[in-house]
């Protein structure tokens, strides 16, 4: 049995750099679980082709999820890799969400199974041995082997890439010959739908993120509002608010470590798919994406470029009516491009009465009223504090 194999492979002893319950792209390639590489990179943002290694990838995914994984997932990975190679992490994330593979339920166990399976393959074991250890339907295994031509030569054990079929550069092509098609027939595992039922995850509970129950996702109209209209911005704002409340974050790079939080399945995955299906929503992506930017330094923020960003005055422009020289307000030091929707969120917060800000009669006032009459230094420091607390500034 796979899970009974001794943990004596080099992989089992590797330190765990990070754990991810979902597939993520890292500089090393497409990774799942405790840093297990499903498909390696062979260059910056360049994933090695899956051609010839389809069964390996499916074996690894099946090991992680403890069940047969639909071959159609390979298509999603291809598309995601293409977006990733183009620097579009957001769309890459959507394509991975489209795979229907949700967050691993029991990450430690799943990660362990995955590493064991990887060890088997790297030491010359066959995908069949992994599938059999998982007690998958023999018909599924037979069909996979037939479809993916297992007689293709493999690299011998003990050599780099041992146990793997030949590979070639991905080079961003999404529709290489011989790829799985999108037609669904249950008899052909190379076609989507053959094992889609196996990918149907349990309905996750919502309202995680230690918060109240999550509201229903914003409706994505099939015929979208025109760009830059109120309905367009209403949708975009509702989308970021809802995604944030659901705990979703796009890929976040921290040094060499890449982490991801939130789910790609469940209501978040459903929403992202709906947004992907509604082509008009692509125009909202730069604004959604920028909203989830990690905090940056002022220097980094100044490199932000439209679309997705607005010039923000750290000391607000209305301050000129309050005696602040316009030359200071309009000076480059006071202006910084920040995510457009964060800009709006900050403006909204500044204008609302707030229990923390009081007038001379101890009655709550808005932060904007509170800052009136303050010195330039106080206003500037306050503006920086707000940017930090709203997750814009480091």
């Amino acid at each position, binding site marked *: 049995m796979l899970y009974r194999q001794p943990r004596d492979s080099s992989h089992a002893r590797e330190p765990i750099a990070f754990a991810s319950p979902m597939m993520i792209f890292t500089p090393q390639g497409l990774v799942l679980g405790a840093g297990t590489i499903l498909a390696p990179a062979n260059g910056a943002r360049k994933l090695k082709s899956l051609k010839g290694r389809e069964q390996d990838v499916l074996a690894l995914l099946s090991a992680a999820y403890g069940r047969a994984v639909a071959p159609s997932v390979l298509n999603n990975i291809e598309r995601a890799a293409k977006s990733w190679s183009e620097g579009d992490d957001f769309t890459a994330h959507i394509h991975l969400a489209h795979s229907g593979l949700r967050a691993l339920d029991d990450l430690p166990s799943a990660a362990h199974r995955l590493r064991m399976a990887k060890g088997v393959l790297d030491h010359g074991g066959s995908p069949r041995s992994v599938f059999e250890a998982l007690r998958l339907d023999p018909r599924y295994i037979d069909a996979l082997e037939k479809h993916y031509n297992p007689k293709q030569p493999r690299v011998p054990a003990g050599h780099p890439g041992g146990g793997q079929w030949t590979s070639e550069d991905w080079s961003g092509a999404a529709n290489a010959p011989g790829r799985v098609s999108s037609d669904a027939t249950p008899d052909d595992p190379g076609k989507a739908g053959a094992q889609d039922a196996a990918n149907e995850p349990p309905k996750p509970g919502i309202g995680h*993120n230690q918060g109240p129950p999550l509201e229903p996702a914003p409706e994505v109209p099939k015929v979208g509002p025109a760009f830059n209209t109120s309905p367009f911005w209403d949708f975009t704002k509702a989308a970021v608010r809802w995604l944030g409340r659901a705990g979703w*974050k796009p890929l976040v790079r921290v040094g060499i470590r890449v982490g991801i939080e939130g789910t790609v399945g469940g209501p978040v995955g459903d929403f992202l798919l709906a947004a992907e299906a509604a082509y008009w929503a692509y125009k909202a992506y730069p604004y959604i994406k920028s909203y989830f930017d990690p905090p940056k330094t002022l220097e980094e923020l100044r490199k932000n470029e439209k679309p997705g960003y607005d010039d923000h005055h750290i000391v607000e422009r209305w301050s000129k009516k309050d005696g602040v020289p316009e030359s200071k307000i309009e000076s480059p030091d006071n202006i910084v491009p920040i995510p457009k929707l964060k800009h709006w969120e900050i403006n909204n917060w500044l204008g*609302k*009465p707030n229990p923390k800000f009081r007038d001379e009669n101890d009655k709550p006032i808005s932060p904007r009223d509170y800052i009136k009459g303050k010195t330039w230094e106080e206003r500037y420091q306050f503006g920086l*504090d707000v940017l930090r*607390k709203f997750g814009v500034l480091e």
Partner: protein
Amino acid sequence: MTTDNLENLSVNALVDRFAAIGVEQYKASDAEEDERYKELFYKMYDIQEELKRRQGDERRALIMLFDYPNMQVRLMAAQYALAVAPQAARRAIEAIAASTWAPQCYDARMCLHMLDEGTFVPN
């Protein structure tokens, strides 16, 4: 919803009304109905003033809203309870600040910052 005759209401009734107003505030905030939000804000303020006025400062009753299934209610209850239950209220605010529930999480982060630097002294 009216704030008339608050002095005739029990503490529990005031807390219930506080929560109901908080839910409406949440909706108004999401819908960017600024005037509506402002109106609701001062209605809630009047309720907490009434609780504060009661013997022993009954704002501590707001503690029961720290787990309320609405983030705006939680946040406002915790901020108004800071003067009477500082530790429990701070923990509630810290939990909101650590979440990604916008815009309440940002306001909670500002609250902690202002408490720590002494620019917000709950009374």
